């Protein structure tokens, strides 16, 4: 599998480390409802198809990326820096 890093270009996925589902939104600080935290930490959509996920380019620029990848085919699409994805 190949992943396009926005800074380094197309590389083997072995240069990257998977970092989980990027569509999850961390509950606000001070959230007291334990169910909210449980769902955030433990539950996954785990779709068979398009998936937005974090990867870190550990053997490259070491930046965290948000990658669009299809889990049914492993075809990966657009990636952007996670910092951009968060501030956008």
């Amino acid at each position: 599998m190949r992943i396009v890093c926005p800074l380094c270009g197309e590389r083997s996925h072995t240069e990257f480390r998977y970092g989980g589902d990027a569509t999850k939104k961390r509950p606000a600080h001070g959230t007291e409802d334990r169910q909210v935290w449980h769902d955030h930490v433990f539950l996954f959509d785990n779709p068979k198809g398009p998936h937005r996920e974090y990867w870190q380019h550990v053997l490259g620029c070491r930046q965290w990326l948000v990658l669009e990848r299809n889990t049914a085919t492993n075809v990966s699409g657009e990636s952007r820096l996670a910092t951009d994805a968060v501030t956008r």
Partner: protein
Amino acid sequence: MSDRYSALSLARHALSDAPWPRAWRTPEPKSSYDVVIIGGGGHGLATAYYLAANHGIKNIAVLERAYVGSGNVGRNTTLVRSNYVLDGNTQFFEFSMKLWEGLSHTLNFNVMLSQRGQIVLAHGPVQLDVLARKGNIMRLNSIDAELLDRDAVMKLLPYLDYSTEARFPIDGGLLQRRAGTVRHDAVAWGYARAASSLGVDIIEQCEVTGFEISQGQVTGVRTTRGPILAGRTAIAVAGHSSHLAAMAGLRLPVESHLLQAFVSEPIKPFVDHVISFGAELFYISQSDKGGLVFGGHIDGFNSYTQRGQFAKVQTVAECAVALIPSISRLRLLRHWGGIQDMTPDGSPFICRTPLRNLYLDGGWCYQGFKATPAAGWCLAHTVANDEEHPLSRCYGLDRFERGAELDDYAIGNWTYKQ
């Protein structure tokens, strides 16, 4: 219905021209069943068998998307063992081991259990201490375990790398003699045949596309072969548990990951045991056909592709050669990938769900195959009584809320690191 296999039936068939009957019936789906089990793998078929054999429920359908044996029951390294650490896991997998020991007789089908012994290696004194603790826990639970020092391992496994150049020196190991291998296809076929002969309808080429739900209760399933009403419905589709659960509006603590396994070209008898490397996740045994069967860690990111990445092939081959240098020139003959449910604590689910009359068997991580008989036994109990079996109470969907995780390898809350 198939007749009973015996020396007599073998002789009778040898003398007659009549072909052997099919091992299981291929009925058309009925419009309604007492229990519908989604997934015709080892777990689904075992559940159907034990529902019929232990609980007297005979009006059962097992729905299989492809064909019996096409999923993970045929995509593993066929190992069975019961060397766990945490209460819950220890007792459950030992129960499974005991069911394995009688399974060929129970099913009247030779599943070729070979209790050749499994040795987990230690590559340092600290690791040997950890194995000693594990062995003590096993023995306290009446499970066989023997701690081996370096000399004892050398005697049993003379072909490992004991040289001073070995990347991971071998300090000892933990042996479970009752552990071993089972022919995995035979497990699927044996349960299918035994369940079918008790009246269970096994319906292949029948994919579930949705659930009928009214007032928080599952009343049936929609399939590619028409709707089927169900008194109770069980999901046993590990690898695709999230996919099925999503059709019922449920989210699970599961991510789907890919695990590869490999078979080398056949060689003469060489590896007499199951060996687990201690420096990396790697395990090896030799099949009856002579191929070395081995596997490693998951690929590391979620995937439903059933097609592995080359990087893992390389890592696993490196482990193999680091442990047994003499196999460095063996060629890989076959290689496959299976999709497994990975959970945040590495332990499975056999339980009720938030929807009434819907039950779940999933989240099996690396341990689905060895759990097959016990999982079927416990899920059958759960479905029949609408209550978890005492041995699988620890495998509820609510265990994360309760702080009752079962993280046997103490890895932490990452599905892709379990």
